[in-house]
């Protein structure tokens, strides 16, 4: 009985190997041409199947349902800006941006302390210059810089989430310093 079992396993492995080979090695070898098409090389580039992945993504609950809370959130500034290739929280006065991000972060911290059920997602963004992989990391560092400041102000880190969008979500799609300055930002999304 045991011997039959091993025979069965052996046959199954051989069958599997042949099956696998027929899928991967169906290109045929290049033959010396003679004008006789019976000896022609089979070219089957399209054997790559490229099946589509087709599923729906998730949406997140971002909006509070309390009108009062909504009003309070509306009154907050929801972006802080950065200098080119920087993730320092520092005053900025260039290319139409004149702000002290510390003041904005302080108001957000005060709001978060007053509303302990509200959570925050900080979205780090970059301008379009530079390479995408580096910009994703730069966006993350910008979001983390703001998170670190808010945590230092007493907000629980569990209430703050960060995500980097790199250069993919510009608020101004123009290709100039004014637009780039607007796009180098942390955007704050309040979530109940």
């Amino acid at each position, binding site marked *: 009985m045991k011997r039959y079992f091993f025979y069965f396993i052996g046959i199954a492995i051989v069958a599997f190997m042949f099956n696998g080979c027929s899928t991967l090695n169906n290109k045929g070898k290049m033959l010396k041409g003679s004008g006789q098409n019976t*000896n022609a090389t089979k070219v089957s580039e399209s054997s790559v199947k490229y099946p589509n992945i087709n599923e729906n993504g998730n949406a997140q609950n971002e909006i509070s349902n309390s009108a009062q809370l909504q009003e309070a959130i509306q009154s907050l500034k929801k972006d802080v800006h950065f200098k080119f290739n920087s993730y320092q929280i520092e005053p900025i006065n260039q290319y139409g941006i004149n702000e002290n991000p510390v003041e904005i972060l302080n108001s957000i911290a005060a709001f978060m302390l007053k509303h302990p059920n509200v959570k925050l997602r900080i979205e780090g963004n970059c301008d379009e210059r530079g390479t*995408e992989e*580096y910009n994703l*990391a730069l966006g*993350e*560092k910008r979001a983390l810089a703001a998170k670190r400041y808010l945590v230092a102000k007493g907000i629980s880190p569990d209430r703050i989430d960060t995500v980097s969008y790199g250069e993919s979500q510009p608020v101004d799609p123009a290709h100039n310093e004014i637009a780039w300055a607007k796009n180098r930002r942390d955007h704050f999304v309040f979530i109940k």
Partner: protein
Amino acid sequence: MRKLFLVLIMLFLISGISYAKVFTFTIANPNYKPIRIGLWGFKHTKSDNATVSKLQNTILKDLDISGLFSTDRTQHFSYEAPSKVVVGLGKIDNLNYVIYGNAFRDGKNMYLSVKMVDVAKGVVFFDHSYYSDIKSFSWIGNIVVDELMNYVTGTYGPFESKIVFAKGRGKVRDIYICDFNGENIERLTNWHTMNILPKWIDRQTISFLSYRYGKPSIFIFNLYKGRVKRLFYKSSLSISAVRFGYNKFAIPFEKNGNVDIYLVNSRGKVLRNLTNSFGIDVSPTFTNDYSKMIFVSNRTGSPQIYIKDLNNFGTTTRLTYNGNYNSSPALSPDNKKIAYIAIDKGRVYLRVMNIDGSDDKAIMTGYNLDSPSWSYDSRFVALSAEINGKKGIYIVNTLNNHYSIATGDNNMYNGLSVSEKIQ
């Protein structure tokens, strides 16, 4: 006295030889003339004209993208035409090489018989027949041009490969695939979310970054089997996955406030740090033996390119010193050259240097260049770029700086990867 005289003459001759000017042939020479190719086929009475036209267009596009050739289509010869006649007319038309032959449809298959002649030598150097299904027929054009490049340059051409890239708008971007010359675009993902930065892991598999579950995480997608797997999601940010040996990956991700490069196995388990610095370390690429890693770090204040010896106590050496922004390094498959993106005084450049940082030179400039990726022959680079308002995938011949757009699309997103040679 006579002997002394002979010795003096010999010395004079030897010194003359040693001071002789060395002439080198370079195709970057402005006086260089493109190699003239006659594309003198492939009509046939039974041919499927649309399919044959597509094959011819593939050959023409490949020849153009190569940056080596100009084409002549004034004649037509069938496969049976005597090569002496073709050579004779090729000489009259000042051609260097002629491609001709037959193409026709038989049932569900297309057939191609093709010859290539060297006009100067008067010989047929390529004579083959192929058949394929109708959809794949134009792919044979890539093989023909690669064979021609092999004969002319001594190195097989780059066109039997695929490029994966991303395109879309806002928070919906998908992964696409096309031929190296930009033809035959097909969509791979349809997730209604942001999917970017595709990279070839091996001949069958790509990795990409997806916001499918909110946080960006790394997915692996086997194109042949249609299998998708979430490889890594244990960080608020993971960026890309590059193969590191068998079933292991180098993944830059955020941990403790820094973005470092880690070694991760195929089950997503972190094995060890490959970098450990305060700040940002991204874009790893490895030598074929995985003994050296080239990557980007801002450890000295601005993004620069470094090389780390993974065997020799992890010695790290900075490679770039010009400008304040050097990023997105790509190591050529022959492990000799690094292509990268530099920003200097507001201008963006594709630059190429040797693996030790020497012989650093600008290859092209444009707007928003990103993600250079080498062809398998280590001569061409594909990259995302916007040049003269045209956004798309550009192919650059790094030997003569010729570039052309493979496919253009305003919704193209930065980040692409070129496959190995498709077998």
